[in-house]
């Protein structure tokens, strides 16, 4: 009986040059139905704690979700996961585009890569034909050229290619992967892991159909048509298509929490030049999309003016517009587009790159680094030319770029003094362009999230503030409460926990953040319909949330085994300090209140508030009691060694 997958994992050992296929059964897939859950399971089971992230022994997992490739809008995402070279924690990053669906059509749910090739290679997959091919001639070349070369070599223009650029080759700790030149697994340095394995690309061609593996194809096909018609009739999806994520610049600037100059300020005086209206006139040439998605939220750009920006690598999203814009004090949208093009060309995560450069700018302005260290770059906020030069240096690991390629946390340690105060990171990963002082639940996610600061762990508080709004109504089947965006406390912790499970579920099954309610137009009941049709399983909404929660617990367990505890679940001190300007000047997060809310969040999750270890009872409820068998000896050993002494003392008190 079909249940939404071919049940196959492709295993490739680059050291041994071996290729094998492994099968899993329906019982396994019920617990780990793809994406974050499948990747988390494999990493927890197979990667010894303490493995160097850039060593051949690290596992690099490419995992589709249950719905990846379904002919429904926003069902395109796949996960890339490994131990992160940026954080040392569980690392993962999702991307849309076309590669994940193509892998599904080729009949694989995941690829697990280990080892290191003797010389650069790429993997070619055409249904059951899988081979390692020589990539020596491709190493050092740019993604557009690499894509053309591989398609020419394989004699197939329709092959989908996931690859790294020189950022990954040079082991920049926040290097990304790109598929179809425009879609990125940006976060956690998965591109550096791929580079460390001498793996340049994975080219995939599949001739199957998603619906062939579905239990009942008709409801999925019907939902695909319904959503296709609804895109322009629903305000949120209309907005994503017409204005896209760059529309957030104006909203956040008006509200006073637009991350500006390394999170010092909430209003950027040059924001008018970065807004959606400017984007449309200065950059935009067309709208793009991912596989079978009618939302069409992607941006195509080209500039032939103050800067030359290629049309090959897609346009900047909000994170990038603001990251290289107000966050670096730059008000020239064309310079921002150029920075985006460079990052995409070199496969660098635009969030970590821009935030690390802003960190360096603040260090420069405080005299912690000078012209000698920057090689003559006047790295002040607002200097667009210096910002672009820094991107180039990072990608090549030249000069100051070699230090900044390590990420802001390591760079701060090397610079010393007060530099650590300017590194806006959690667990070593740089913060996205959302200020928790304006929406505190985002801060809970930054702190507690397993792979470091990320804005997609949960739903942002602003969508849930008004019980009559579209956003809140979309979320209401989940049983959340309408709460002010800046309010902490136990009710906020409860909202966060529920919505984290919902978002985590999306990352398991391959849904884009811009598909389901409350962020967008696919209603929660419709998601349930799609999952039931794909699998034939009689699942409830509670079951979907449990799938999400289970995946989070796997990642948490991975981190505990690698030495993480409560102290790493923290925010940069700056967020507990007042914003310097704008309508929210003086606003800060109360640290005691934040910590109390975190305490409540651990309680809701069934985790020890000091060690963050999930209780056996909670793991049993999630059907993963085997994880307790891994954790308990380690926790007991640490307690014996005294590393848990303070935690034990706190509990006794």
């Amino acid at each position, binding site marked *: 009986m079909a249940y939404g997958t071919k049940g196959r994992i492709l295993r490739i050992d680059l050291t041994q040059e071996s290729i094998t296929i492994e099968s899993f059964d329906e019982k396994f897939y019920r617990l780990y139905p793809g994406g974050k859950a499948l990747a988390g399971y494999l990493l927890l089971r197979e990667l010894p704690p303490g493995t160097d992230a850039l060593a051949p022994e690290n596992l690099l997992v490419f995992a589709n979700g249950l719905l990846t490739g379904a002919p429904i809008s926003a069902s395109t995402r796949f996960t890339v996961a490994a131990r992160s070279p940026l954080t040392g924690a569980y690392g993962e990053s999702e991307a849309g585009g076309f590669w994940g669906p193509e892998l599904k059509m080729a009949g694989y749910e995941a690829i697990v890569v280990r080892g290191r090739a003797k010389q650069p290679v790429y993997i070619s997959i055409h249904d059951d034909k899988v081979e390692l091919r020589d990539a020596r001639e491709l190493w050092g070349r740019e993604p557009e050229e690499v894509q053309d070369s591989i398609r020419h070599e394989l004699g197939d223009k329709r092959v989908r290619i996931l690859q790294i650029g020189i950022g990954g080759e040079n082991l920049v700790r926040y290097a990304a992967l790109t598929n179809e030149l425009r879609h990125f697994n940006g976060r956690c340095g998965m591109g550096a892991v791929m580079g460390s394995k001498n793996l340049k690309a994975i080219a995939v061609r599949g001739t199957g159909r998603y619906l062939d593996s579905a239990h009942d194809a008709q409801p999925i096909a019907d939902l695909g048509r319904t959503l296709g018609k609804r895109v322009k009739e629903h305000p*949120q999806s209309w907005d994503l298509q017409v204005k896209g994520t760059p529309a957030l610049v104006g909203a956040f600037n008006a509200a006073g929490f637009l991350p500006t100059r390394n999170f010092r300020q909430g209003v950027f005086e040059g924001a008018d030049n970065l807004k959606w209206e400017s984007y449309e006139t200065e950059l935009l040439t067309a709208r793009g999309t991912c596989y079978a998605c009618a939302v069409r939220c992607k941006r195509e750009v080209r500039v032939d003016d103050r800067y030359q920006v290629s049309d090959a690598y897609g346009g900047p999203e909000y994170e990038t517009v603001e990251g290289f814009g107000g966050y670096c004090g730059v008000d020239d949208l064309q310079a921002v587009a150029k920075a985006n093009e460079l990052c995409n060309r070199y496969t660098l995560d635009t969030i970590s790159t821009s935030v690390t450069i802003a960190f360096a700018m603040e260090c420069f302005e405080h005299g912690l680094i000078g012209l000698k260290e920057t090689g003559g770059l006047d790295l002040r906020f607002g200097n667009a030319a210096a910002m672009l030069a820094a991107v180039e240096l990072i990608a090549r690991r030249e000069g100051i770029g070699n230090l900044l390629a390590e990420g802001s946390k390591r760079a701060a340690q090397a610079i010393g003094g007060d530099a650590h105060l300017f590194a806006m990171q959690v667990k070593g990963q740089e913060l996205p362009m959302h200020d928790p002082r304006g929406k505190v639940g985002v801060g809970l996610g930054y702190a507690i999230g397993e792979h470091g600061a990320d804005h997609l762990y949960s739903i942002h508080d602003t969508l849930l503030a008004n019980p009559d709004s579209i956003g809140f109504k979309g979320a209401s089947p989940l049983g959340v409460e309408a709460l002010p965006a800046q309010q902490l406390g136990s009710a906020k912790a409860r909202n966060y926990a529920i919505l984290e499970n919902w978002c985590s579920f999306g990352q398991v099954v391959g849904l884009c953040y811009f598909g389901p309610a409350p962020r967008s137009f696919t209603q929660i009941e419709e998601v349930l319909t799609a999952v039931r049709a794909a699998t034939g399983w009689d699942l409830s909404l509670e079951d979907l949330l449990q799938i999400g929660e289970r995946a989070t617990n796997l990642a948490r367990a991975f981190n505990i085994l690698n030495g993480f505890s409560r102290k790493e679940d923290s925010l940069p001190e700056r967020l507990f300090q007042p914003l310097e300007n704008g309508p929210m000047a003086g606003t800060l997060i109360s640290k005691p209140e934040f910590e109390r809310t975190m305490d409540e969040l651990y309680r809701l999750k069934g985790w020890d508030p000091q060690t963050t270890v999930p209780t056996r009872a909670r793991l049993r409820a999630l059907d993963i009691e085997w994880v307790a068998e891994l954790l308990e000896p380690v926790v007991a050993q640490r307690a014996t060694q005294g590393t848990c002494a303070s935690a034990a003392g706190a509990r006794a008190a």
Partner: protein
Amino acid sequence: MELHLGSYLSWYLPDQPSSLAIHLDSPIALRELVERLKLPPAEIAIAAVNGILVSLQDAQVSDGDRVELHPPNGGG
């Protein structure tokens, strides 16, 4: 006055404009302007007049003002 409609607020108006020029003979309540335009108040999370955040319930707007309205925005 100049009215800017952020994100999906444009969707509620005919032709879905992102900005409008509106002539006002005399100051009116912002709430009344929103009602005239048939914008749903529940979808207005941020209101600013001349760069100053205001309450939708209390604010007055006049000809020559620059008014910005934005809906609740999520991540991404």
